[in-house]
């Protein structure tokens, strides 16, 4: 820590001093910190000369230990050694996967996750901040002074809550966070600027558990992200698991205990890695039941087993191409990111699909940190003549809840950032003075299927007839992908605004699931939407008929009155009925609305006459003109 004091303020006055910028790849398993020195980007190393810093934070009795030194505490003191904290960022307690057992003592405190350690309760932002502080120390030791500005990378599919949490962690660590950068975008920058090529890049990012695809275009100094896509349940772990299952089958093993399963899974992973270099790999192990397992496999056999899984990655690739409105031969370069792209089969499948050799010259573990450091160097103002600009997109649509539990999309996914959109809404009840704004993120049509980001209330709307107030809601997403929302009543100017800083968010799995469901459920969604609209219509006509009855039921004959009442009752029952089939429920609602319309049409005419008579009574014709 003493080294932190090297950077005295008076040293900053040196005119030849460059601003120091660092890029941080804050990963789930490992993190890296990189910087640009004399025009060359490089990854910095820790005390032991290692570039990959395990994302592990150990809260010890005397001090907090981070990175490689903390590895051994995973076994010795798991409850105080936090691994892969990135999975908890921007997530609520209820988001925790109940199928996974963690060695931590979680504290339920409202919505946010807290872990009880010997140094007190820590939330994911604090733990990430401790990790970031350590990365900052590595930078300070290497550079001899504090960094001026920092760029931190996040997965392209991180939602608003996860981005906010990441930025907060950076600030808590005492870093000047200039920008959050999407990981695939960072990789494209690393290659794009390296090759000095203009053109269209596809970034293929296959990590341990997730898969991201981004398409970017570099033209005249502007890097434009055209589309992002992915599968949040596909990665190296799936390859390991597939091979593990193959081993069980081949060696006729069943009902293994946990430690044997873990052992074989590690062996499977190691075989996968060996096969990137050799044509054959094998292992011998003795299981806890004393059974000896001999396993050997050629690369050819291995690739036959894996082919289907690898080909699955082509689906998000095709989706990204469609979203960007490009053919595959319009892609100039394919950038490979993530440890799993070391698999020769992955490279081969990509090579065959694009009929082009993918770029692999930069280490796939380091490419994201390197890109982040180059972007940081531009943002602190070091790169004056060779400047470029980055235009990123938002990965998920943003919307607001409307009547009937529907989501009105305001900013569609893949919109270029920054972006601001406004939309007008109105009151639906006479004299309504408050309105709740419910902000949602996701692709589906119903509120319950999207992620709730925030809810706030606009008060003090002057009482008006339903539909007369005009409430303008403005969504602003900045270049980091962070959202703020404001609402204003246009007639009176009453306004309300918040920066959306939710304590929870979506996890990668949720997002993948939501995207997939939005495609497969598109049909059901439309029917559900039509049903909700039918409910809204039905409630509206019920409301107006009941109001009319309350005011003027004396105009009706008993028979007519009972007909109308009867029809209202039937409609109410239909509204309350649980739904089996959206389509048939919508149809019966529509039918009953028509019926109510029909039986009450005479009543409406008589009321109209009464109203006109009232208006005219006691007035001369000349007054009316």
């Amino acid at each position, binding site marked *: 820590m003493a080294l932190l004091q090297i950077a005295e303020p008076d040293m900053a006055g040196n005119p030849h001093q460059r601003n120091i910028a660092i890029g941080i790849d804050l990963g789930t398993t490992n993190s890296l910190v990189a910087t640009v020195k004399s025009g060359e980007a490089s990854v910095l190393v820790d005390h032991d000369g290692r570039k990959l810093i395990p994302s592990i934070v150990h809260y010890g009795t005397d001090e907090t230990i981070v990175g490689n030194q903390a590895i051994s505490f995973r076994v010795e003191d798991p409850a105080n050694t936090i691994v892969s904290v990135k999975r908890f960022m921007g997530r609520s307690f209820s988001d925790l996967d109940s199928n996974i057992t963690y060695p931590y003592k979680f504290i339920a405190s409202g919505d946010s996750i807290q872990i009880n350690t010997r140094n007190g309760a820590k939330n994911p932002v604090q733990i990430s901040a401790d990790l970031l502080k350590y990365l900052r120390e590595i930078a300070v030791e290497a550079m001899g002074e504090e960094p001026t500005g920092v760029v931190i990378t996040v997965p392209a599919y991180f939602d608003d809550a996860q981005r906010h949490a990441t930025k907060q962690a950076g600030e808590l660590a005492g870093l000047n966070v200039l920008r959050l950068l999407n990981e695939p975008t960072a990789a494209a920058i690393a290659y794009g600027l390296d090759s000095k090529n203009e053109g269209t890049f596809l970034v293929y990012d296959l990590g341990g558990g997730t898969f991201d695809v981004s398409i970017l275009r570099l033209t005249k100094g502007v890097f434009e992200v055209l589309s992002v896509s992915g599968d949040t349940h596909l990665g190296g772990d799936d390859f390991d698991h597939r091979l593990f299952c193959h081993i069980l089958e081949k060696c006729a093993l069943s009902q293994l205990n946990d430690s044997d399963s873990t052992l074989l899974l590690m062996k499977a992973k190691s075989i996968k890695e060996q096969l990137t270099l050799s044509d054959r790999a094998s292992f011998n192990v003795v299981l806890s039941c004393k059974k000896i397992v001999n396993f050997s496999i050629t690369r050819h056999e291995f690739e036959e087993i894996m082919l289907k899984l690898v080909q699955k990655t082509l689906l998000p690739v095709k989706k990204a191409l469609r979203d960007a409105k490009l053919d595959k031969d319009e892609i100039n370069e394919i950038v490979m990111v993530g440890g799993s792209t070391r698999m020769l089969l992955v490279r081969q499948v990509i090579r065959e699909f694009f009929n082009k050799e993918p770029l692999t010259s930069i280490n796939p573990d380091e490419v994201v940190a390197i890109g982040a450091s180059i972007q940081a160097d531009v943002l602190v103002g070091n790169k004056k003549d060779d400047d470029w*600009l980055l235009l990123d997109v938002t990965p998920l649509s943003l919307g607001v809840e409307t009547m009937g539990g529907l989501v009105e999309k305001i900013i569609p996914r893949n919109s270029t950032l*920054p972006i601001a959109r406004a939309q007008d809404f109105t009151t639906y009840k006479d004299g309504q003075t408050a309105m709740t704004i419910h902000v949602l993120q996701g692709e589906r049509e119903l509120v319950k299927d999207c992620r709730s980001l925030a809810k706030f209330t606009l008060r003090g709307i002057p009482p008006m007839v339903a539909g007369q107030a005009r409430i303008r809601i403005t969504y602003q997403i900045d270049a980091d992908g962070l959202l703020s929302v404001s609402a204003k009543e246009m007639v009176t100017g009453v306004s309300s605004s918040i920066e959306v800083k939710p304590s929870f968010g979506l996890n990668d799995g949720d997002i993948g699931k939501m995207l997939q469901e939005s495609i497969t459920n598109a049909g059901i969604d439309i029917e559900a939407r039509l049903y909700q609209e039918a409910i809204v219509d039905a409630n509206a006509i019920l409301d107006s008929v009941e109001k009319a009855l309350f005011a003027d039921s004396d105009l009706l004959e008993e028979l007519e009155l009972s007909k109308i009442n009867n029809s209202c009752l039937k409609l109410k029952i239909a509204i309350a009925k649980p739904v089996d089939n959206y389509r048939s429920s919508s149809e019966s609602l529509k039918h009953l609305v028509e019926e109510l319309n029909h039986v009450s049409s005479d009543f409406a005419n008589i009321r109209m006459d009464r109203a006109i008579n009232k208006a005219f009574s006691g007035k001369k014709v000349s007054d009316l003109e």
Partner: protein
Amino acid sequence: MFDEILNKNYFQLFGLEQNFVIDIEQLQNKMRELQNIYHPDNFANDQEYLNKALMISSHINHAYKSLQDSQLRATYLLELNGVEVDLVYDTKFSSEFLMAQIEIRERIEEAKDDEDIDELENLETELKKEKQKLERDITDLFVNEEFQAIIELIKQLAFYNKLLIVVDDSISSL
């Protein structure tokens, strides 16, 4: 300098003639040129201008999107001529047009059920052709300033854009 941007109409902003037919390449180049000046990343260390830049940069992105897409461009051009297009409440269509729409929807559903990607891709090509034809008709109508007729075609264009998304999602889901 900032307010000047907000006061220009979108065509002026990108140095284009106020016309339905535009030079997309010039639109792109000018957008990049403007973002190079006004994007908030240029003001990362300058709190004073950061918010202003955010607003301007968002405005440029919105203006770009509004001209890049033919349906939005036609709508905006009508607006500049004082004609409002209401896609939500104006739902009158000729029965011929509606029948054609229903037929296309049925073909999409069928192809989806049969997992017939070729048929879906054929449909996509057909829809794109229809869309181009509508765009040509809109071009002619703008020359003659037949605004009411243009509204009808914009409504139809919206249908085709929606169908193209449905086809696209169907292909992606197979």
